């Protein structure tokens, strides 16, 4: 069977993680006005998701809590400077949290004291019951899940591990036997397929 050439299409997934109701942006604005109830509300929406992601990235619930706390402290302190035109609130906060996780992983690898990472894996694939429309639009959940389902198991596994920071530069240095070329190839294919699949939804 001839493999279809997949070409990347620009800004196909630009609608992902948007804040259509502008609820998160509004909460961040309230935080900029020193409204602590806005912080609590945003934490009640994003906190569980961020804790789950950080726990999976770091494999340590204690550190995950610290990282999520750091993220919310930075959201609180940087709420006045947040510009929703640069990136959606969820992406802005997620990128910050991922940065903190990367710092922790690098620090572990530098100190060599606790370089081991027990990678937690979900006991069951996240299903519809975990969907929270206040975190991300229901349609986005559906689109991403459908796009992931199109991937070959290897590609999907590889992409998920990359998202959860399994293939960071410091991790690869620690495991020189990791076939980085293969990993990058699988990721490249997976990302192309994802973008193309997501573009179909856009159309």
């Amino acid at each position, binding site marked *: 069977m001839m493999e279809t050439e997949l*070409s*990347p*299409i*620009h*800004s*196909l*997934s*630009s609608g*992902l*993680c948007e804040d259509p109701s502008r609820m998160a942006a509004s909460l961040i604005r309230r935080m900029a006005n020193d409204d*602590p109830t806005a*912080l*609590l509300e945003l934490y009640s929406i994003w*906190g*569980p*998701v961020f*804790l*789950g*992601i950080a726990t999976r990235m770091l494999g*340590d*619930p*204690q550190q*995950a809590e610290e990282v999520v*706390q750091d993220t919310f*402290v930075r959201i609180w302190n940087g709420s006045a400077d947040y510009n929703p035109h640069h990136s959606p609130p969820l*992406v802005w906060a*997620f*990128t910050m949290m*991922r940065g903190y996780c*990367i710092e922790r992983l690098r620090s572990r690898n530098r100190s060599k004291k606790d370089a*081991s990472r*027990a990678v*937690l*894996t*979900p*006991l*069951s694939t*996240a299903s519809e019951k*975990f969907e929270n429309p206040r*975190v*991300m639009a229901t349609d*986005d*959940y559906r689109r*991403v899940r459908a796009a*992931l389902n199109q991937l070959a198991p290897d590609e999907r596994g590889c992409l*998920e591990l*990359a998202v959860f*920071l399994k*293939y*960071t*530069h410091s991790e*690869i240095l620690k495991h020189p036997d990791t076939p*980085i070329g293969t990993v*990058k190839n699988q*990721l*490249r294919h997976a*990302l192309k397929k*994802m*973008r193309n699949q*997501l573009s179909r939804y856009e159309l």
Partner: protein
Amino acid sequence: MNSDLYDSAAWRTFDMLDAEESAIFDEAMRHDPVLQSAYLEMDRLSAAIAVTQTPPVKPTPEQVLRLQTRLGLIPPQRSHFWPTFSGWAAAAVLAVLLTLHLTGIIDRIDMGIPGLSATSPPPPDSATAHDILSNGTTRNLQQPSTPDGHLPITGTPGGGNKPENKANAKVETKRLNQEIEVLRDHLENVPNHDRALFEVVPGMALPIVMTMTPPGVAAADPAFFAKNDEHSPITTMLGDALTALTGPSGGKSVVPPAGQADRPTSLHKLPTAVPIYDAARDIGTLVVSNLPPAAEGETYNLWVSTATGGQPIYVGSLSESSASGADSFDFSLGSTMVLPSGFILTKDPQDTPASPSETNTVLQGPPSPPR
């Protein structure tokens, strides 16, 4: 559209670039809006995948409280671990009482009470207070008295520095109280961290790793683990996690307990196995060491037991082991719903696996508790 652009953005997003490459990328992104857009798109995709593929973990009320406290939205509240607290509080009270007692002695000396030497005591300096606290005794105050019945108090003559002594004592007491507070906080944090590290994360599971030993070999038999792990492939594989079992000597020179000097030799070639099982994916590997090849017409069978009890579940039989007796076997339990609490390896006639019993069990894990 250049797909390399997306690749670079992806490698940057997943932190797969080294420091120099990252710096070059960031610099390029500052001047190139298309690259910025590609990077943002990767961030969106990454966030969406992470959110979609991760079950949420509900924060505890304490976590919310800690965040609010950190931001100064509510005044700090201490969670009291009363046994610890009362211990330190007792120490603090003791320190204050002893300090006051010292001050009382000073006062008595100053007033010229008979029975006490004319010399004044030294100020209750930090060393004295520290000794009292750290030793838990009043050693310095209970030294044998001098032959004339006076306390052997030495120091500068005269009692003109009483207010100074009192002030010093107050300062010292305050300092000690602060130290006690800091130490108490540290002490509280140690169990908290350990508890959090190993607490169950809803919906998540760690891979299960355990050591299987012959029946009757206790878990804490250092001689057994020292000898058997020395050349085990699993020791290399798992690193410090297993070598720690052999104690601080690193498994090279464990001295057996008295009366067991002959045990290392007799246990040297006993078989062991380490099952590693990822319940989330139902993928497992059994690494065996020193397992002799099964006799003609016999086979090794792997069983799994669960915390719910009942009969062990048959997993499968091991294909023929290598000549060296060290090999690994992949297995799965057929369901991610089975959470093993133990593994058993039996030796049975081929094709007729019998339920594990005392007679056919070769290895079991976790090892028997120490006697």
